[in-house]
């Protein structure tokens, strides 16, 4: 059966679930009385338990980073380009852990889960979680798996923020932090986009104050709009021009003189919005955007990022993409600068790529070369 999958894929994977009975304290002052995390692992943990890599997902990602859940799956995990035998995150050498974060909608405890204290779904009562809360929950998963120190923590975008938080909160548990297409905090513009996305969901009549499941519905229009907006920020102007241009859609290139779809880009965005609704939960989307907005590790240190990073022990690889305007290279340079201030080990690569923010998920050779070279060094260092 496994020979139906590409040779450089981890192939068939089965998600695992761990239930945590100890309450998780949260930055909001609230706590989760109990929770579960769903996760996948690829590769083998070595005898020294030194070859583990944590993969942290971004806004709409989940634990399914690589491989297939069934031989009939149309698509592999979200980071198949990077994880697998012989790939940059080489599963012949590393033991890879990828989980769905708390508040998610792919199996870990989230708004659609039952609140054990009420016997009903959390819905809008699910506590607002932060990047640091996620990292705390991930550290407990590491304990369960017997991983004292990650060879590397790796992520893009919101995933990279978790990696940065790991290096700050657990300096002796991270050897290398790989931060891809990220920022040390959101800009006003970033927050503004998130707010419009949230308003799209909150103002959908089917939202029902977050109790839509009880009403047997979901805020389809709002969530689809939020996703459409997000997608615009994931692509560069050039990438959109190359992908769609002003290509007319349908009827022999004639304008419809109506508010129907005239251009390919409209069709694409509608499709992205609608297919997202099938797999994602609106309350989770609200939570994820809030976690992004709240992320600001320098805030506790008088807004001095160098001070926030003063005690990190990890070595860093920071990667940005020239056409990414959501988290532009200058945002990555802020992190690099703060690390240089503290004489930390840091390498920075700015990948020339036209794809925009989405580039971090794409198999861009120059990008994969950097990751591969870096992680080969890591593998040698930890004896993987």
């Amino acid at each position: 059966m496994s020979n139906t999958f590409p040779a450089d894929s981890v192939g068939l994977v089965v998600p695992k679930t761990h239930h945590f009975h100890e309450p998780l304290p949260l930055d909001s002052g609230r706590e989760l009385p109990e929770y579960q995390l769903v996760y996948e692992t690829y590769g083998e943990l070595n005898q020294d338990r030194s070859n583990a890599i944590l993969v942290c997902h971004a806004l709409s990602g989940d634990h399914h980073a690589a491989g297939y859940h069934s031989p009939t799956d149309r698509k592999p995990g979200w980071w198949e380009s990077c994880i697998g035998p012989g790939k940059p995150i080489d599963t012949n050498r590393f033991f890879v852990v990828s989980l769905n974060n708390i508040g998610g909608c792919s199996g870990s405890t989230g708004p659609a889960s039952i609140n054990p204290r009420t016997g009903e779904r959390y819905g809008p009562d699910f506590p607002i979680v932060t990047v640091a809360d996620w990292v705390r929950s991930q550290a407990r998963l590491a304990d369960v798996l017997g991983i004292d120190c990650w060879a590397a923590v790796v992520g893009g975008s919101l995933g990279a923020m978790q990696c940065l938080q790991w290096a700050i909160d657990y300096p002796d548990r991270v050897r290398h932090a790989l931060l891809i297409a990220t920022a040390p905090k959101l800009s006003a513009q970033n927050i503004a986009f998130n707010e419009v996305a949230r308003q799209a969901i909150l103002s959908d009549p089917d939202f029902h104050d977050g109790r839509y499941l009880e009403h047997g519905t979901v805020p389809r229009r709002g969530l689809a709009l939020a996703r459409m907006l997000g997608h615009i920020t994931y692509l560069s102007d050039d990438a959109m021009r190359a992908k769609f241009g002003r290509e007319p859609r349908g009827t022999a290139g004639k304008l419809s003189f109506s508010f129907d779809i005239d251009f390919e880009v409209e069709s694409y965005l509608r499709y992205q919005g609608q297919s997202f609704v099938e797999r994602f939960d609106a309350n989770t989307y609200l939570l994820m955007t809030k976690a992004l907005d709240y992320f600001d590790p320098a805030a506790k240190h008088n807004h001095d990022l160098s001070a926030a990073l003063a005690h990190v022990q990890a070595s860093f690889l920071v990667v940005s993409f020239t056409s990414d305007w959501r988290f532009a290279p200058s945002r990555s340079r802020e992190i690099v600068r703060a690390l240089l201030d503290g004489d930390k080990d840091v390498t920075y690569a700015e990948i020339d790529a036209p794809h925009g923010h989405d580039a971090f998920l794409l198999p861009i050779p120059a990008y994969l070369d950097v990751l591969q070279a870096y992680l080969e060094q890591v593998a040698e260092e930890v004896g993987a």
Partner: protein
Amino acid sequence: MSELRADLAIISEWIEPGSRVLDLGCGDGALLKYLQEERGVSGYGLEIDPANVVACIRNGVDVIQTDLDAGLNDFDPDSFDYVVMTHTLQAVSYPHRLISEMLRIGRQGIVTFPNFGYWRVRLQLALKGRMPMSGALPHKWYDTPNIRLCTLRDFEALCRQQGIRILERRVLDHAHHEQAFSRLLPNLLGEIAMYRFERAA
């Protein structure tokens, strides 16, 4: 490890063990790798070329992908013992600004560059009337990255003008070997110039 290029070997002798070094235009990171392994030096390389960035990573050198023409604002004053720039000075847009930046960031600067006063270079221009090409200057005039060529005397004049004290000078041939006779008339006989310098108090 493989033998270090002769000019890099000289630089490594100039650098105190255990010091902090910033290498501008560090190429594949060979110098920093050598300094890290043999002299206990720490620091970073700056490099613009993606293939060289990957080579640095493979060499275990911390490299920051940077366009030197965009300046060195990410670095604090006096954050390095040495700022090194080998065979790069002649390829940047504003060499004079970069030199003063080197001494803002570092205690001492070290540069190497091809000497445009080398006798063969002079002869080619004087006798043939063509832009010179040589072992150290292998490019045609229209596709050369070397846009700011200078002679030893030019460089030393700039140092005087900028209040920079030259601590050491060597000249090499294009294979980076030191020829004893070159010292007699360095601006005529030296093909590659090497300088170590600091701010005059």
